[in-house]
């Protein structure tokens, strides 16, 4: 301890304090502040860049999700439209079919009615003809009866046979 005190030089102490404090102030102004600021700014910049990259990535993801959603919606809409169109087509076909059926039925019914009336008319005509014929036959039979009795009979029979065949 005695040696330490003896070694202690006040002059050196004085210069050390003066030079050290001077160096500290100079370096603070010209070195440490600009250095730490630059490093801080750079670190801040890197942090911000990373953050914005992360944000961009998230945005991108959101965008992609949106796209996917829109695509799905479009697809669903298209499917719906297609389904609707198919439905419409089927409906139209069914409608057309039923209409056609109805029309056909109507035509058939009309035709049948026409046929019926024609038939009735024909039958009436036939009846009148048969009556005329019958009267003619009867006239001829009567005439033959008058000539030959057997032959008259024969004639009647053959004529009747013809009629039935007809």
């Amino acid at each position, binding site marked *: 301890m005695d040696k330490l005190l003896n070694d202690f030089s*006040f*002059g*050196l102490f004085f210069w050390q304090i003066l030079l*050290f404090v001077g160096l500290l102030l100079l370096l603070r102004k010209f*070195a440490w502040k600009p*250095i730490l600021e*630059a490093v801080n700014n750079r670190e801040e910049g890197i942090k911000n860049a990373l953050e914005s990259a992360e944000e961009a990535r998230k945005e991108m993801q959101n965008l992609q999700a949106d796209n996917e959603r829109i695509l799905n919606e479009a697809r669903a809409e298209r499917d719906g439209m297609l389904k609707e169109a198919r439905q419409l087509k089927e409906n139209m076909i069914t409608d057309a079919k039923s209409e056609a059926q109805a029309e056909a039925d109507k035509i058939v019914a009309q035709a049948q009615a026409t046929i019926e009336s024609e038939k009735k008319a024909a039958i009436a005509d036939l009846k009148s003809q048969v009556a005329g014929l019958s009267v003619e036959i009867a006239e001829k039979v009567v005439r033959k009866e008058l000539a030959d009795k057997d032959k008259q009979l024969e004639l009647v029979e053959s004529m009747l046979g013809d009629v039935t065949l007809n």
Partner: protein
Amino acid sequence: MHRNLGTEILRVMQNRTVVKILLIFTLAFATSNLFAKESKKEGNEGEGDLKTEIKEFIDHHLQDSHDFTLFSDKEANKHYGFPLPVILWDNGLKLFSSSKFHHGETVAEVDGNYYKLYHSKIYKTDASGTINYDEDHHATNTKPLDFSITKNVVSILLIGLLMFFMFSRLAKSYKKNNGIPTGVGRFLEPLVLFVRDEIAIPNIGEKNYKRYMSFLLTVFFFIWLLNLLGMTPLAVNVTGNIAVTFALALITFLITNLTANKNYWGHIFWMPGVPTFMKVVLAPIELLGVFIKPFSLMIRLYANMTAGHVVIMSIIGMMFLFKSWIGSPLSFGLSFALSILELLVAALQAYIFTMLSALYFGMATEEAHH
């Protein structure tokens, strides 16, 4: 916080200094035994002189000097180097070149006053340069206030200029190169960031660390570079000088106590959470701790660097003492290995001083968390 005092004392005790001092003693004993044997055999007087010469050389090296001697030729009595300005305050400013002392051999006469250099200190003497001694062989002559630009002051200036040059260049390179360092800055920037991220932020905390950064960075590089300068053949020993370490520790002490908050003083004078009796007992111990903390900083740096220089120079000196084909190469290898170790110690001591300073600042600004 009451553990700090204990840990401080432990730290001082566990320090490598103890190991180094033991090593010095062992070496001293080993060599003195060797000498005893040799002198018995040969009765050679010259080797004893060599030993004292080495001891004196080491002592001289550890001390500050008024001229910058690079090497000296003892036989021709010539010193190679350059003189430095001597500034004395002795009833007025006295300014003269240290070449007037002729390395302590002559008396310097300035304005009718006579000064003599004796054991690296300037004493006021009479014209013939008589030094009076007391019974303990201490000089009793008056010592004028000595503000000389000594070898250590020159070294401090040199390192200060180097630091200013390096770090202002680094600061400028950011502006030129869009925030990215160039050249030597690529090596310096990680060191600056090391001080910030490994020393300041963990010990002081994110909130308060910024206002201590200038001191921590300056003190770290200052001590480190001066330690390294001490490893060069220029043979300066700045960080192993008690005045320098005292100045550094004083600045740490002042910053700690001037920036301390209420919580810190509360923990010293009225420790919260202990019985009143203990508060009274703890207050003086804690108050003592306030001074012991920077004191330990001062002693640790001084002792480590001085011990390192002493060990290396002793082992180098042993090369000249052994003068044998086995001993001298062994000493050479040992001094080489120790020099490498000292390079590590140079950085380690700078780190420890800065780290502990940051720790004390952290304690002084710690917020109450009870």
